[in-house]
């Protein structure tokens, strides 16, 4: 039996730019690394079903989600994929616990599940607060709690920690790892920050201009970036 969690072949044209890639995820956490505009977000959107590629075959845990050869496109609400992106936001008309409960509303134990997720991300004290009364960092925690509450089959993270400071990012990552340890869920995250890739120490796919140029452990595929980071840190230590 194959250990492949996700297999994706995606071809899509955006005017002058295009995506043409083929990859599979075998590790619990994979990072899609590349500069801005390299197509990382489009890859996640295609997997989530928010973008309909011109040609694609996306298989998650053995289930075909997209197969343009047979005109198959599973709509996003049936994919059971968790997602938080740079523009994700809490629903402003709902409080924190109602936001987290949104994806498990029909679950018999939905309210308790939502409370449990808020506790896991240490934001249970904000349960009855509206998004406008919640700080940015806390909102990111609630967004993650909301995305994970329905127990998705895959978690897609599109630079969700970009706006967080190092301490907040580390704390949120610790909470997330705690959840993933208890509830193994493959993660595909996107970043253009090499330091974040090394902090995650995950399998890494390097994307440039819509093409995959390397895949493997970060110290191998991002050797140049590692060197630059070390030089910067050495310089900071000596100054």
């Amino acid at each position, binding site marked *: 039996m194959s250990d492949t969690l996700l297999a994706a072949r995606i071809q899509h044209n955006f005017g002058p730019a295009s995506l043409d890639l083929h990859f599979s995820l075998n590790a619990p956490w994979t990072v899609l690394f590349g500069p801005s505009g390299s197509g990382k977000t489009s890859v996640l959107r295609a997997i*989530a079903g*928010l973008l309909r590629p011109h040609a694609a075959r996306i298989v998650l845990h053995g289930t075909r989600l997209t197969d343009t050869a047979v005109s198959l496109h599973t*709509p*996003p*609400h*049936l*994919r*059971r*994929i*968790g*997602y*938080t*992106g740079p*523009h*994700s*936001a809490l*629903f*402003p*008309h709902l409080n924190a616990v109602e936001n987290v409960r*949104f*994806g498990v509303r029909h679950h018999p134990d939905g309210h308790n599940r939502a409370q449990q997720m808020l506790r896991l991300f240490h934001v249970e004290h904000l349960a009855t607060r509206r998004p406008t009364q919640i700080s940015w960092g806390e909102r990111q925690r609630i967004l993650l709690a*909301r*995305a994970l509450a*329905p127990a998705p089959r895959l978690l897609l993270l599109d630079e969700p920690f970009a706006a967080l400071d190092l301490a907040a990012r580390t704390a949120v990552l610790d909470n997330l790892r705690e959840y993933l340890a208890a509830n193994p869920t493959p993660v595909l995250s996107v970043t253009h920050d090499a330091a974040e890739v090394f902090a995650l120490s995950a399998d890494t796919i390097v994307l440039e201009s819509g093409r995959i140029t390397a895949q493997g452990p970060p110290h191998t595929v991002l050797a140049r970036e590692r060197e630059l980071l070390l030089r910067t840190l050495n310089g900071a230590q000596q100054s």
Partner: protein
Amino acid sequence: MDTQALLLTLRLAAVTTILLMALSLPLAWWLARAHSPLRSIVESLTSLPLLLPPTVLGFYLLVLLGPASAPGHALTSLLGHPLAFTFNGLVVGSILYSLPFAVQPLVAGFRSLNSAMLDDAALLGASPVRVFASVALPLARPSLVTAALLAFMHTVGEFGVVLMLGGNIPGRTRTISIALYDQVQQFDYASANRTALVLVCAAFLALLAIYTRRSRTGGRLV
């Protein structure tokens, strides 16, 4: 003040607004989200009453709903009487005439929604109907209020369509604006002044409610 005409006008505006909102909500949602080439055509047709003289719309509706036309004949056979010169005929005319006043604020409200939030809702398992009902509608609520107020007040003030399609039958099709016209024709300027003042005050209060709400939402057209 012609109380009978005033009550009939309020009933007409209330029925029109309710039916118009039921029709406009899915239409506006589609106009705000669709990428279909049909969108521009539908949007133009929806906005047509903004530019057309009401008498033109009234004339065509009179012809279309009259027993001489095929649709009018079918409707007459179905209902047992023609729709023209009836309250129900006025409702049909008012819905078409006030359509852009309900649809346009709703389209603007739906377009101003954060599309990432709608995507998030879908990825949390919400079907398109649930995304609309549980996220888009509550967030576009100020637009709903604006659309309903504009549709109601526009129906209250309509004249040309009512006169062409309904005539001037007291208790059936004689609305407040027709009553005002009659009062002027009879040189009863004191009554005309009272009627006109009621309409001015009602329109001003409706607009005040809309603009006060808009200033609370930071000037956004919602």
